[in-house]
């Protein structure tokens, strides 16, 4: 009886300090979320911030950190969806969420949605607006529109200088014409691949088509059209010839894709370096 009484007393005395150790109250949770965010543990920070936003739904500071956590974690789609949930009406998006929304849409390669949003939004500053608009065209590799837009913008906007370089590079980028490559290979087998830079494949094609054609002509010249030898080598030569024309077409397409991919890598680097 005495033991139970002592235990009850002890629990009563320790109740207040034990309550003070609540790690899940809002101030401590904010401290913990801040620690996770600043120690760059963005996926964990996002979970903690989601819990805090449940407790304080209208806290813009928490919302901003949540969106930044998703962005830093490269989960741009979720960042965009969360802003959609915070601001169901796009016109009501305020700073800094307008900037974050445009950034996350572009990072998620939603170029049309970015331009639609920029057309309705009035809070974003003009330089950022121009930056995102021009970048949306660059991502689509629509260099004519990006050049047109950049030409209309005053040159003193320093953040756009990288975009001007990229846009100019895109316009002047060397491309290979698939039609010309096919025509060249039709005239001289393998020459279409020399044109697209695959010169080693071009030499192999020239040799293989040359040898099989020579064997076909040799067979036909000895036995005429009754030459089985001639027909077999003639079929192989024709197949290689047609295959080489098709290969020149795909080779030029691959060349153009490699060039476009190189530019896309530069664009990604420029976009994520942008403050």
């Amino acid at each position, binding site marked *: 009886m005495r033991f139970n009484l002592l235990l009850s007393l002890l629990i009563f005395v320790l109740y207040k300090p034990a309550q003070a150790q609540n790690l899940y109250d809002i101030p401590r949770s904010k401290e913990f979320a801040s620690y996770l965010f600043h120690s760059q543990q963005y996926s964990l920070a996002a979970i903690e911030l989601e819990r805090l936003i449940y407790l304080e739904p209208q806290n813009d500071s928490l919302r901003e950190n949540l969106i930044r956590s998703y962005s830093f974690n490269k989960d741009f789609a979720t960042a965009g969806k969360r802003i959609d949930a915070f601001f169901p009406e796009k016109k009501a998006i305020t700073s800094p969420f307008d900037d974050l929304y445009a950034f996350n849409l572009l990072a998620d390669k939603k170029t049309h949605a970015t331009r639609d949003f920029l057309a309705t939004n009035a809070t974003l500053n003009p330089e950022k607006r121009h930056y995102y608009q021009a970048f949306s065209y660059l991502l689509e590799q629509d260099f004519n529109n990006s050049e047109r837009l950049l030409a209309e913008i005053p040159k003193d906007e320093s953040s756009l200088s990288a975009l001007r370089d990229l846009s100019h590079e895109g316009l002047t980028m060397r491309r290979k014409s698939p039609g010309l490559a096919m025509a060249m290979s039709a005239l001289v087998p393998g020459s279409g691949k020399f044109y697209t830079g*695959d010169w*080693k*494949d071009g030499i*192999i*094609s020239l040799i*293989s088509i040359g040898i099989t054609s020579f064997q076909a002509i040799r067979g036909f010249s000895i036995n005429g059209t009754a030459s089985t030898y001639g027909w077999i080598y003639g079929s192989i030569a024709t*197949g*290689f010839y*047609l*295959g*080489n*024309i*098709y*290969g020149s077409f*795909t080779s030029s397409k*691959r060349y153009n894709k490699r060039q476009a991919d190189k530019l896309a890598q530069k664009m990604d680097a420029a976009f994520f370096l942008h403050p």
Partner: protein
Amino acid sequence: MGQSFAPTELRFGFRETHVHQEYTFAKNNTNEVQYFFSGLFLFYKFAISSQDNNSCTFSPSCSEFGMLAVKKKGPIFGMLATLDRLQRCNGLSPEKYAFDQEKHLFIDLP
């Protein structure tokens, strides 16, 4: 008592390189053209290719590429792509293809 061999060893000292494979892509055919080319492919694989070592520089091999190309692009463009692939299968341009570390072959899909 006959001499015993490990499962991967064949008589005459040759190492078995052709492990039995299931060519599932040659079985899921949807039309007569695909059945025809799948038949050609399987005949080549089991009657001709199995008698020799694998010498293709690419993964998938040229015959597998041909089968996949016909299924993906149709008989005409699939055959043209295969004839082009046969001319590219020379190993002279390693810088243009990704490398499969597991198979030690260059990757070239149709």
